[in-house]
């Protein structure tokens, strides 16, 4: 790892204590946030109970729009998840030093986003109480699921992704928990003593740990790419014009990372402020995130162009109709929201001024999230509503309180976990931040003295 510029104040001790401070007694504001998150979750739960009792009819579905806000949210959250693993695994393999300060937050976000996403397939099915029929378990009837169905691929992809990203997060945490353990007192000391499973930083531990971490990263990298590809195949495998495109896998992966990075920024800005981590999470880090955003955003907008070009160039009347409907049909507002937020907004990031302006980045990141949500809305709802094969099925789709209720619940669920995490575990990696600092050397210190 390259020896980075020696930041005078940033000693190992400083890093440890600054980050450990984030675990101090929560303020009132924290509890307000947590409370509102739980409240949102409550809304979601009540809505779900209604859906189970009376049926999905409470949501806005109408023939032929059989997938809508729920699946939109599913893809949205899966997308959010991706940047985490990207930053923690892929950038780790690329040995890019700047990731160390931000990857923990991103990774936690990944885990909780996948947890959120995973709920939607269960919520959106017609008979939620039979969700377990999708799992290949030996049963009295001797029936198995259909492994040709992209939904089953999904199940395996999401399941794997959740498991792997969780253990990846925990692995990264262990040395830090140990560090916190050695500072903590009272019940927390006990908690960390157990959760750090006896980490001491002995050379034997580091030896296996670093190796293992490397391989985990190596496994997580293809995984993260596969997961959103599989999600995209839910659509690409179908014959619906606007879904049935080979472009979808890369297009979705890029979109996912784009939205994920957006969400990382959205989360980091307040954390940095509240926990006073300006020294550790610097503008330099944000600028790098912004660059990532710019890159993936450009890929996304390029995909938009490709989609429309191919639709026109193929000469396939159905394809053409679908994309015409998308741009100028009754849902034009959704499409153009998506085009502006994802197609044009990233271009602002060409300017260093914007990239290095935290407020600007925060605002942009919010719009990135909105834009990406609408991208999924457009792909799912609008493609189905304007399904050009059947000239006779009319679509009148409007979300209802049930759709919004579940969506609100998902945000509550996500932020509840995230808030609990940042207060109880180091939201910035202690050991890895140290790794990019100059190690204490007697010569250096002598010179200083």
């Amino acid at each position, binding site marked *: 790892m390259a020896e980075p510029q020696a930041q005078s104040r940033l*000693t*190992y*001790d400083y890093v*440890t204590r600054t980050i450990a401070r984030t675990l101090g007694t929560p303020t009132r504001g924290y509890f307000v946030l947590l409370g509102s998150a739980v409240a949102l979750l409550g809304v979601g739960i009540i809505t779900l109970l209604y859906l189970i009792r009376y049926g999905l009819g409470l949501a806005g579905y109408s023939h032929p729009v059989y997938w809508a806000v729920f699946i939109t949210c599913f893809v949205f959250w899966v997308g959010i998840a991706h940047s985490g693993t990207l930053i923690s695994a892929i950038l780790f393999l690329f040995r890019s030093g700047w990731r160390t300060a931000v990857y923990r937050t991103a990774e936690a976000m990944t885990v909780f986003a996948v947890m959120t996403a995973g709920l939607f397939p269960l919520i959106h099915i017609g008979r939620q109480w039979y969700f377990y029929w999708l799992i*290949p378990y030996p049963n009295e009837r*001797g*029936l*198995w699921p*259909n*492994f*040709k169905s992209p939904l*089953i*691929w999904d199940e*395996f*992809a999401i*399941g*794997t992704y959740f*498991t*792997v990203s969780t*253990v990846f997060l925990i*692995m990264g945490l262990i*040395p830090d928990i*140990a*560090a916190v*353990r*050695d*500072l903590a007192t009272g019940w927390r000391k006990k908690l960390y*003593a*157990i959760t750090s*499973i*006896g*980490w*001491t*930083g*002995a*050379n*034997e*531990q*580091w*030896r*296996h*740990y*670093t*190796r*293992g971490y490397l*391989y*985990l990263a190596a*496994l*997580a990298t293809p*995984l993260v790419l*596969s997961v959103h590809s599989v999600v995209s195949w839910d659509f690409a495998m179908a014959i619906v014009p606007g879904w049935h495109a080979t472009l979808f896998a890369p297009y979705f992966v890029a979109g996912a990372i784009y939205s994920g990075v957006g969400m990382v920024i959205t989360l980091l800005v307040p954390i940095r402020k509240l926990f006073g981590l300006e020294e550790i999470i610097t503008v330099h880090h944000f600028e790098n995130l912004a660059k990532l955003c710019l890159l993936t955003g450009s890929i996304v907008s390029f995909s938009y162009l490709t989609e429309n070009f191919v639709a026109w160039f193929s000469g396939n009347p159905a394809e053409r109709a679908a994309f015409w409907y998308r741009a100028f049909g009754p849902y034009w507002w959704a499409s153009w929201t998506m085009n502006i937020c994802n197609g044009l907004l990233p271009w602002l990031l060409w300017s260093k001024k914007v990239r290095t302006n935290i407020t600007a980045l925060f605002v942009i990141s919010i719009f990135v999230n909105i834009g990406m949500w609408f991208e999924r809305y457009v792909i799912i709802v609008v493609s189905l509503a304007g399904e050009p094969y059947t000239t006779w099925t009319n679509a009148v789709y409007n979300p209802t309180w049930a759709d919004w209720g579940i969506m609100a619940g998902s945000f509550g669920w996500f932020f509840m976990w995230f808030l609990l995490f940042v207060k109880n575990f180091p939201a910035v990696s202690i*050991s*890895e931040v*140290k*790794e990019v600092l100059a*190690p*204490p*050397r*007697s*010569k250096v210190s002598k010179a200083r003295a």
Partner: protein
Amino acid sequence: MNVLLKPFTEIFRPPPTPGVLGVFAFLDNTLDAIKKLRAAGHTDFTVYSPIPRHEIEDALGQAVSPVRMFTLIGGLAGCAVGAWLTLWMSYDWPLVVGGKPVGSVPPYVVIMFEMTILFGALSTILGILFNAAFAARRVGTIQYDARFTNDRFGVFVPAGSDKAAAAEKLLRDAGAEEVRRG
């Protein structure tokens, strides 16, 4: 300190190892100490550091961790499980969908891939735990200092009362800011 390592001391209650613990403030001094120890023929000493440093690994001249074998085997096993799951379950009750073959491999590749990753990752974790926690000799029985996870390096040299003095001296010379015996 024992409190901290309770979970492990409880699993296997080995007797505490007698030896000398040196606490270092600086990396170079630590490396220096390692070199001296190896020169002096010590093999089984333990080095603590808050972060992994290649210098230390090099100085210790460790072999590459066997964890990779776990990853490899786990991955292969996962792939096999994926293949068995999909194909056997398809043929167990043959149902034709969309005019496709009952057991058609291309869609099953996805499952196989995911299983590869899943099993690979899990067995890697097991590998780390097994090697780091269990295979690591005498873990939990040797001296430790809370500062090692913060900003101090440490070297523990197992030594009976006879050799202890020599080890102590060696560490001091290397520039340990504190040396303890236990």
